[in-house]
């Protein structure tokens, strides 16, 4: 692959990159210029860009409040995911009776369509008395199968000699997880953080059902309200999109190196 002329490769990749980036540009452009969606032809360069659509969004819903809620819920989900998944992942690296059943259970759990489980999930959450609470919002996503496997894979990559040595040093299992495994599984942690963050940050249907009070709403709900209600103000709608997407993208850009490693590990370290 790496022999011969490079420019065709660059050409192809640049073309693809453009294709991938155009939607981003288009949203940004509309969010600052808001050329009316019913104007044709669309202008490629924003006419008279201004930040006021962002101001409108900020005041249209209690943005700070919704943002805070989203952050709180995501934070819970992320912490819980890293913790619980690491534990489960470690457990799965060990042989024990009923392991294959657990694995089967996990795998099949991946395939339950959440849309079909809302009502029972709601009733259960109600039973736990967690309705309209951050924990209730986060709980269904406090452990995710894919992430467990990411941990499992990267733990398996840890040479067993290390583990044995640690055990001989008299480390408790938790000590082993925390002091031997985790430092070697930074990538898996990053993957867990990002995936669980993205998933809980983007979650839409569950918050919709579980939140009652106005000040427990999360950002996707605000976005949905925009969609249904303020849809004519396209500029503001796309400004909202940017404001909602930014945190996820930022986090990804910050941690992408480890994230991609971890994903890769979970994916192919078979």
């Amino acid at each position, binding site marked *: *692959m790496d022999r011969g002329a*490079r420019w065709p*490769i660059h050409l192809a*990749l640049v073309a*693809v*990159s453009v294709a*991938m*980036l155009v939607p981003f540009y288009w949203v940004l452009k509309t969010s600052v210029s808001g050329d009316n*969606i*019913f104007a*044709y032809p*669309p202008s490629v360069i924003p006419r008279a860009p201004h930040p006021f659509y962002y101001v409108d969004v900020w005041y249209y819903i209690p943005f700070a409040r919704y943002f805070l809620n989203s952050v709180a819920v995501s934070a819970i989900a992320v912490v819980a995911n890293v913790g*619980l998944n690491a*534990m*489960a992942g470690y*457990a799965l690296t060990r042989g*024990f009776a009923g*392991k*294959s059943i657990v*694995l089967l*259970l996990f*795998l*099949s*759990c991946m*395939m339950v*369509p959440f849309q*079909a*489980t809302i009502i*029972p*999930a709601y009733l*259960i959450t109600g039973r736990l008395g967690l309705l309209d609470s951050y924990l209730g919002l986060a709980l*269904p996503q406090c*452990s995710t199968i894919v992430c467990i*496997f990411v941990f499992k894979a990267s733990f398996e990559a840890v040479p067993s000699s290390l583990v044995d040595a640690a055990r*001989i040093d*008299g*480390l*408790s*299992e938790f*000590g082993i997880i925390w002091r031997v495994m*985790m430092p070697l599984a930074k990538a898996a942690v990053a993957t867990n953080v*990002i995936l669980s963050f*993205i998933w809980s*940050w*983007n979650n*839409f*249907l569950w918050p919709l059902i579980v939140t009652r009070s106005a000040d427990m709403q999360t950002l996707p709900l605000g*976005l*949905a309200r925009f969609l249904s209600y303020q849809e004519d103000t396209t500029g503001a709608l796309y400004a909202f999109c940017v404001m909602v*997407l930014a945190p*996820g*993208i930022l986090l*990804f*850009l910050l941690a992408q190196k480890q994230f*991609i490693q971890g994903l*890769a*590990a979970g*994916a*192919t370290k*078979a």
Partner: protein
Amino acid sequence: MTSAPADAAAPATVRPHRFRPELRGAALIWCLLAPSLAIFLLYRVLPLAWNLWLSFQDWSPLHPAQFIGAENYAEMLFDDEVFWQALWNTLIFMASAPIGIAIALALALLVNADIRGRDVYRTIIFLSYPLMTVAVAIIWRWMFDERVGLINYVARSLGLVDHPIPFLNSFDWALPSVIAANIWQMLGFYMIILLTGLQNIPPQLHEAAAIDGADALGIFRRITLPLLRPALFLCFVIGILNSFTSFDLVYVMTGGGPGRATELLVTYIYKLGFAQTRFDYAAAVTVFFFALLIVVTGVANRLSGGDAGAMRLD
């Protein structure tokens, strides 16, 4: 992670006894699994069981349940074209995964070449994955817009079409459009996985083959592809799961329309339950849906030699 209570896991002694540590170990393992298992039990298994039970009942939030045997299933299989339409669309959606994977493979090969700025390319291509699907749907619904959509604009300026195509409003274009948006979002994810697959292939193999005088294509066919199999199958499995569960995308982009052109099983389940208050019937479809997923992924897993990365059962 809080440090464990001392009693939770007494340090195994240097020279352990025959089986007591075994037992303790097992207990510990289950303790480690407990929280995750609890969550899945509460939010996956129980609801599924509820659906299973419900699928044999006649129930709605408005009246108490009563047993009606397999009536819901009978209706689903013999008396509901919409169900079959939705199933068909879902299968098409699923069948589209290989397209994305193929593109991703090509990209992975390109990015794998040691060229300047490969990380930048990689990042850019991956960037669409972390996006909120609702927002992605909003964006693409608009890209595909008949009157002011960018795609139509470009196509018209290039003279590819004389009339703008009403992508999302046309029975023939709606599903492909949604699929395209889906591929756009998944592409980077596939690529990353394949890229790692490529990088795990020891370069010596390529060199050896090159010395044997194999051309690039030959190397790719005889060495790269076979060694890439697990990664490819993982992509495929993820693609399947994704195509079965991409609810937000369809819900926002087309809402299943026009007609039933983009109705997927998952959107149909949602509509049945919440638009038509037919949770009992929706439950039947859900059960079928679940069974179908198990079968498909099972088959994929088998094909991959039970070795599709995360899907593997040891």
